[in-house]
């Protein structure tokens, strides 16, 4: 047991050091200073490991702070009550039982440790569980302190989250052993659990907030279930077999795991296409049509699902506004003064990044190897065809939001027709803008490598900047009329400029990294 712990730690240390040195040697200043001999030097190894670990810890802290920040943001929008933060934190921790398990996820480290180095699989799993638990605990305590939250409640919630994680890992293992697949591949089960749980996060908006008693009860239940879960994890002996099945070399090397497949892989049911949809088409039109027909699951179905969810939310909100004067006033206030929030909402709802991932992984990754595909007129022509299709895909959820807002506006802000119409227009403009934006930055920066990892820093910076600017809009207090006029002008300008840039720059930048 201790030996496995020791060797796992050793592999992690070497991994940290080598990755750190590799990245360092890519930087212009260090490229000449650090030679390959550095891999042999014990002194540099120690320094590198320390730096690598510091960077890793900073990264973890940053992500956890971001997680806390998002909860803060959400709780502030939903309610003024300070306990709304703890409410959302607890619900997120429960959601974590279902979505955040790591012990069985395929990874190169697991493949190397268990298959190549032949480590004891069960001990390796327990080591990882230990590391995950400790890291989770320390990060949460740190953030509760930094965010100046109640440390006692924070401690209770941290224990809750840690125990919930153990329950989740146990459930994951149980499901995999029983059904030979991960539970999240069952879409109905997945959404059937996740959506109601996410809806519970909205309860503070309606004044329903958990208190310290519920947190304590959750902790008690969590403790008991975590003990059972750990006993189950400890009882199982066939981890080596499970890891062997999950961590196949080709899966690891191509990063072709089930999670990604479920996002961007062509589904078997989409293989057959009605002849009348493509029979009259030729060349790139034919090519593009087949691409979108075969990716219906990724594009239309997810957009339809999103639209259905939005429809339910809006019907619910409309009913509430019709029956409750208080909520009607709050909604009216939100729509009148905080319309900028919809920039951020549309940013999150847009399917653009998934579409570009599918384009790259299933199409451009292969086609860019062919010289004819890299010609300027082909790139621009295909860009225009794709833009139209992506706009169409995103239009349905945008229409639901636009019409939903229009109705809410009509109900809560009586006789304000211009405001309602401009709001609808504003949402549609945003949808077109984000559809275009994702496609443009994909063509101008083509950030992915063959493993679908983002390799361009410039792309990451633009993505962060897009989020930041979208977020800044949430602070603006402007009428929908001004916003929609401004949005329309901006969007038109953006289309013209981006088409020009795609024509001029994309033939040079749109290539395999």
């Amino acid at each position, binding site marked *: 047991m201790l030996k496995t712990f020791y060797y796992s730690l050793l592999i992690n240390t070497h991994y940290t050091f080598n990755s750190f040195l590799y990245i360092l040697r890519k930087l212009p200043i260090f*490229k000449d200073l650090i030679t390959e001999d550095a891999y042999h030097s014990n002194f540099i190894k120690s320094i590198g490991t320390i730096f690598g670990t510091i960077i890793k810890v900073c990264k973890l802290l940053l992500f956890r702070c971001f997680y806390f920040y998002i909860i803060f943001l959400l709780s502030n929008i939903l309610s003024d009550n300070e306990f709304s933060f703890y409410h959302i934190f607890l619900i997120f921790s429960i959601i974590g039982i279902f979505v955040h398990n790591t012990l069985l996820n395929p990874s190169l480290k697991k493949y190397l440790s268990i298959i190549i180095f032949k480590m004891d699989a069960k001990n390796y799993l327990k080591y990882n569980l230990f590391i995950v638990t400790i890291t989770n605990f320390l990060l949460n305590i740190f953030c509760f302190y930094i965010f100046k939250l109640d440390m006692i409640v924070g401690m209770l919630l941290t224990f809750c989250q840690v125990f919930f994680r153990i329950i989740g890992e146990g459930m994951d293992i149980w499901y995999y052993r029983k059904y030979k697949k991960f539970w999240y591949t069952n879409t109905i089960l997945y959404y059937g659990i996740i959506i109601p749980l996410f809806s519970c996060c909205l309860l503070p908006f309606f004044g329903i907030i958990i208190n310290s008693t519920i947190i304590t009860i959750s902790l008690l239940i969590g403790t008991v279930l975590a003990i059972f879960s750990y006993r189950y994890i400890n009882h199982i002996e066939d981890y080596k077999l499970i890891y062997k099945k999950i961590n196949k070399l080709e899966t690891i090397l191509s990063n072709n795991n089930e999670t990604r497949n479920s996002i961007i892989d*062509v589904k078997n049911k989409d*293989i057959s296409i009605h002849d009348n949809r493509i029979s009259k088409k*030729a*060349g*790139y039109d*034919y*090519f593009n049509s*087949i*691409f979108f027909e*075969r*990716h219906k699951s990724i594009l239309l179905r997810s957009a339809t699902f999103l639209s259905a969810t939005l429809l339910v939310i809006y019907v619910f909100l409309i009913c509430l506004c019709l029956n409750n004067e208080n909520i009607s006033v709050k909604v009216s206030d939100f729509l009148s003064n905080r319309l900028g929030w919809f920039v951020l909402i549309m940013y999150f709802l847009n399917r653009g990044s998934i579409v570009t991932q599918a384009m790259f992984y*299933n*199409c451009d*990754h*292969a*086609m860019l*190897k*062919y*010289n*004819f595909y*890299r010609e300027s007129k082909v790139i621009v022509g295909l860009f225009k065809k794709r833009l139209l299709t992506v706009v169409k895909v995103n239009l349905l959820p945008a229409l639901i939001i636009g019409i939903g807002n229009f109705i809410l506006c009509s109900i809560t802000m009586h006789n304000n027709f211009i405001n309602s119409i401009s709001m609808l227009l504003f949402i549609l403009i945003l949808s077109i803008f984000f559809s275009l934006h994702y496609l443009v930055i994909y063509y101008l920066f083509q950030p992915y490598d063959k493993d679908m990892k983002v390799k361009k820093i410039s792309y990451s910076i633009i993505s962060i900047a897009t989020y930041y600017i979208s977020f800044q809009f949430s602070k603006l207090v402007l009428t929908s009329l001004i916003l929609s006029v401004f949005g329309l002008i901006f969007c038109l300008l953006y289309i013209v400029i981006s088409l020009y840039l795609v024509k001029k720059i994309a033939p040079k930048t749109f290539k395999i990294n």
Partner: protein
Amino acid sequence: MKLIVEGLNKKYDDKEVLKNVNFSFESGKIYGLIGRNGAGKTTFFNCINEDVDVDSGKVYLEDEMRKRLITTNDIGYVISTPVVPEFLTGREFLKFYLDINDKNQKKSLEEYFSIVQIDKKDQDKLLRDYSHGMKNKMQLLINIISNPKVILLDEPLTSLDIVVQEEMKNLLKELKKDHIIIFSTHILEIALDLCDEIIILNNKNLEKIERENVNSKKYKDKIINMLKEEKC
């Protein structure tokens, strides 16, 4: 028709891969480019195909009329790991390619498939489900259709079974009449069996080896010794 490489240099950071390469390739021949793993065979192809920027040097195409710089339209590049759009079926990919490249459509889809011997039942399968050899055949087929003057083949036979290897070899022998074919491999037997000329990429440069009795041990040893002499 000739492919002329003049003063080609390529470095990756400090590592010099190609150093002042000067060589001339002629049509009607298959050139076997031999080199050890990591010698720079793929880099040489990538430089010709403009997939990477060269540090210096030029690549020309010369026929009876004139000598001009080569363009990517002159080149068909078959890479070792075949990449095809996996969301299309073999038939769809071929139809699409014919739409954009062969306006006259001299042959039917079936005729094209028969060139590379892909069965009817496989033609409507997704390319995702094609074997490595079948993907390779598709890649070669579309390079045949676009009829480039130069065909670069980067270790295309290495991982194919012997039946597909033979089919591909025969196909290349048929193609060589009107094309300049450069075929890279690190398997000496394949090169000796298929190629009209043997070139070694050694010490960052190309070196032609006169063909002697290709089956003799002495000849093979000579090539292996040359490859062993690689200066670090």
